[in-house]
């Protein structure tokens, strides 16, 4: 059997909605991935530690609170500190167009704004995870 792609889905920040994250998690499972869901209100440090312990290929960050400009780059910074930049980081949630370039410059590979079908994110992951 092919080894499944492992993804960690995390919600940094203080917002309390995770319906979107759960929908995505289910779609990923249905696409044959192993999805570790870590729940709400995670600090970047908790997210990176969990990603390392779980040896995931991808971290999916979802943030609706508007704190993405601080929280997302903090995740990639900590990954760099741990020599774990081979983990692909993608983001989603309510993120204004104008924030996207700086997030990408900080090492977030792709940003999926609301309304993007889950299949787009899944195809992106399948294309970009190299084994």
């Amino acid at each position: 059997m092919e080894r499944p792609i492992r993804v960690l889905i995390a919600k940094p920040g203080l917002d309390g909605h995770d319906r979107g994250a759960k929908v995505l998690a289910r779609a990923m499972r249905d696409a044959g991935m192993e999805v570790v869901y870590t729940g709400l209100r995670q600090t970047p440090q908790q997210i990176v530690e969990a990603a390392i312990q779980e040896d995931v290929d991808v971290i999916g960050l979802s943030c609706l609170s508007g704190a993405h400009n601080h929280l997302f780059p903090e995740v990639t910074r900590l990954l760099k500190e741990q020599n774990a930049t081979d983990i692909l980081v993608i983001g989603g949630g309510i993120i204004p167009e104008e924030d996207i370039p700086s997030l990408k410059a900080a090492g977030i590979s792709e940003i999926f704004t609301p309304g993007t079908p889950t299949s787009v994110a899944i195809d992106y992951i399948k294309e970009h995870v190299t084994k």
Partner: protein
Amino acid sequence: MTTSSTHNQTSWAQRILDGDRRSLAQVISLLENQEQEGFNILKELYPHTGQAHIIGLTGPPGAGKSSLVDRMIQEIRTRGHKVAVVAVDPTSPFTGGAILGDRIRMQRWASDPGVYIRSMGTRGSLGGLAQAVYATVQLLDAAGYPYVLVETVGVGQSEVDIVQVADTVVVVSVPGLGDDVQVSKAGIMEIGDIFAVNKADLPGSQRVIIELESMLDLGSHGNWRPPVIPTVATTNQGVSQLVTAIQDHYAFLKENNLLMEKRLTRQKESVLQRLTERIRKDITELWTKEHGSQIWQDLAAKRIDPYTLEEQLYLNWKGGNTVDKKD
């Protein structure tokens, strides 16, 4: 894998002994994927195994196993020890994917350097899961975690044979699932060294306790009578008693020279399973090489019966294998 080519300075084994959690995590993946490289590293680390107390928790879906594990981590940390967790969730047989949701209950320990948590899907391979969990547990043991907790869902065929992995098995029951469903489920009474009745805050828990106690009174247990411990994972009630009972069971195994015996049985089983799997692969390869799909067509057309076919394949394989042996 890309991981194996990086860091050449120190060996994987040494990095794991040095406490590098990234290396540990990556080697667990190798073992989970049944890659030979993983087993080679485990060979190197094997002298460091045998120190950890392996504790299995099993029980019906939603019984509060993960919540209980979270509280047990807290108790073990308070007592001053490091602890590792392997949490197993079922893989979807249709897609091969899985949602690994146990970690969410334990995530507050993510940044504690004394706690390592790993989620695993059952991945549905024949006896493969028990082997992957077993190998992972040994690696965590060698990495210096004195307690390794293994959570598995106790439902039907996706259940890991937890007995094959753990020194101490905790069976988690809950009230409200209908009487005999859980208690008399085949095998459950036999595998439990300790019975936790979780959600003891809910009505009906007293009845589950009494039922378990009376079942246990009927059974024979050698010198260890499994205790029944009410717990409430949400409030931490009974967790300290549970951890103490787990430690008592370990002491019991050691004092009565049962630990070595138990582990040897497990090691033998592991050798046999791995060997069986290897031979099965070998035979499959041999016959597809020699016959292609012809034998299946013969079978379909009733030119041969399955019993004769099996015999022929075995003799053919055995013949091929004894030729190059000297004896």
